């Protein structure tokens, strides 16, 4: 039942992303709050609902974005998949896993968006997209990674209390 926190949390994240985070740009890139939240959530121990969160987030964010929902769904599910794969391999260094997922997830999401827009006929030079959007966005996402990871860890403890606490 505590998993229902996903609805208000992701809703708030979409609002913050659209109203505030998108205003703080570095060159032409800006952070993706939802991506970082999903990555941090999927990396928490005991979390079994990361794909559900990714589905919800992609539906919510597609209301505000011109990009179609399936691009977000593919991108966010890819981030969650990456996080779950890395969690098993670098479970002793969660922050390292967080940075890796943020880096690779942002890259994956941007390549997906780039591919879709190019196929739609938009004029997007690859070098400009990488230099002005993707790399600054990765940097901003990495800056967000540590505080978001801490917040999501606390949230995971609340949603999935350990057996001793129960």
């Amino acid at each position, binding site marked *: 039942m505590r998993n229902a926190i996903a609805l208000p949390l992701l809703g708030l994240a979409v609002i913050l992303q659209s109203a505030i985070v998108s205003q703080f740009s570095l060159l032409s890139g800006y952070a993706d709050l939802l991506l970082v939240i999903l990555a941090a959530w999927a990396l928490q121990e005991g979390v079994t609902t990361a794909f559900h969160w990714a589905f919800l987030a992609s539906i919510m964010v597609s209301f505000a*974005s011109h990009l179609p929902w399936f691009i977000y769904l593919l991108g966010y599910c890819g981030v969650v998949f990456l996080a779950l794969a890395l969690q098993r391999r670098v479970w002793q260094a969660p922050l390292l896993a967080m940075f890796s997922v943020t880096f690779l997830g942002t890259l994956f999401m941007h390549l997906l968006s780039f591919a879709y827009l190019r196929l739609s006929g938009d004029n*997007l030079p690859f070098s400009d997209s990488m230099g002005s959007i993707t790399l600054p966005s990765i940097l901003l996402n990495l800056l967000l990674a540590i505080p978001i990871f801490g917040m999501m860890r606390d949230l995971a403890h609340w949603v999935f209390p350990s057996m001793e606490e129960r």
Partner: protein
Amino acid sequence: MKDLLSRTLQTSIIFLVVGGILVLAFGGFFSSASNQLTGGFVSAQTWFATRYQAIQQFLAAPRDIATLRTRNTELEAQVAQLQAQVINLQQAVNQTQILSALVNFSRTNPENSYVAASVIGRDPSPFLHYVIINQGSNGGIQRGMPVVTSDGLVGRVDAVIADAARVQLITDPASSVNVHLKNANTDAMLQGSVTGDLSLDLISQDATVEPGDLILTSGLGGGFPPDLIVGQVVNIHKLPAELFQQATVQPSVDFSRLQIVLIITNFQSVDVTPLIPTTTP
């Protein structure tokens, strides 16, 4: 008789002695002695006074600190309240200035009818240049309506829901606007880019374009009404081998500071897509 004489003599002598002492004192002959005497008194009085004040302060201090703390808290609360008021008033002044400019703009263009809207968000994807406004179909907004500010053209409405709409900015990479260069008296196409820069394409090689030339919407294609200010030419790229000239453009609108926009509601955009010939195999 003898007693009376002796008493009078004694009194006179006392008066004379006292008077003499006073005359000597006023004359400054006792200054060193009086200084020592008064100095001792002053020192003693100072010692007692400072000790008394210290004890008084020690006894009265707790009450004063409590009073001062309360007062300080009150004043801090008042300062915070006043700062909030100042911020609110500054925002109100900014909004009033923007609205005043928009009213002036609508007065100078009375042929159009407008609906004002606030910009409440941006597209979450950094690849796209879209903004979200707080007016939708309930406010009479429809897809394709042009969006402007007092500075010039902003874009067009891309999607509408009941109380909000998404506006494609002219800086979006997928945006293209037919424009007219006023000084060169020629038409061109304005295109956005992924970095938000604007460029002009399809300028005839015969046209004489110079930096600073004003760019207006031409109205061709039916997407925008004519004669809306778009920006100014900054650089021209003219190569003899090319079919057309190209130019970079400085937009008249500062897209990073969009707060309030006007939607032209009496303009019906024309969808020319069915008229564009498609290649058949």
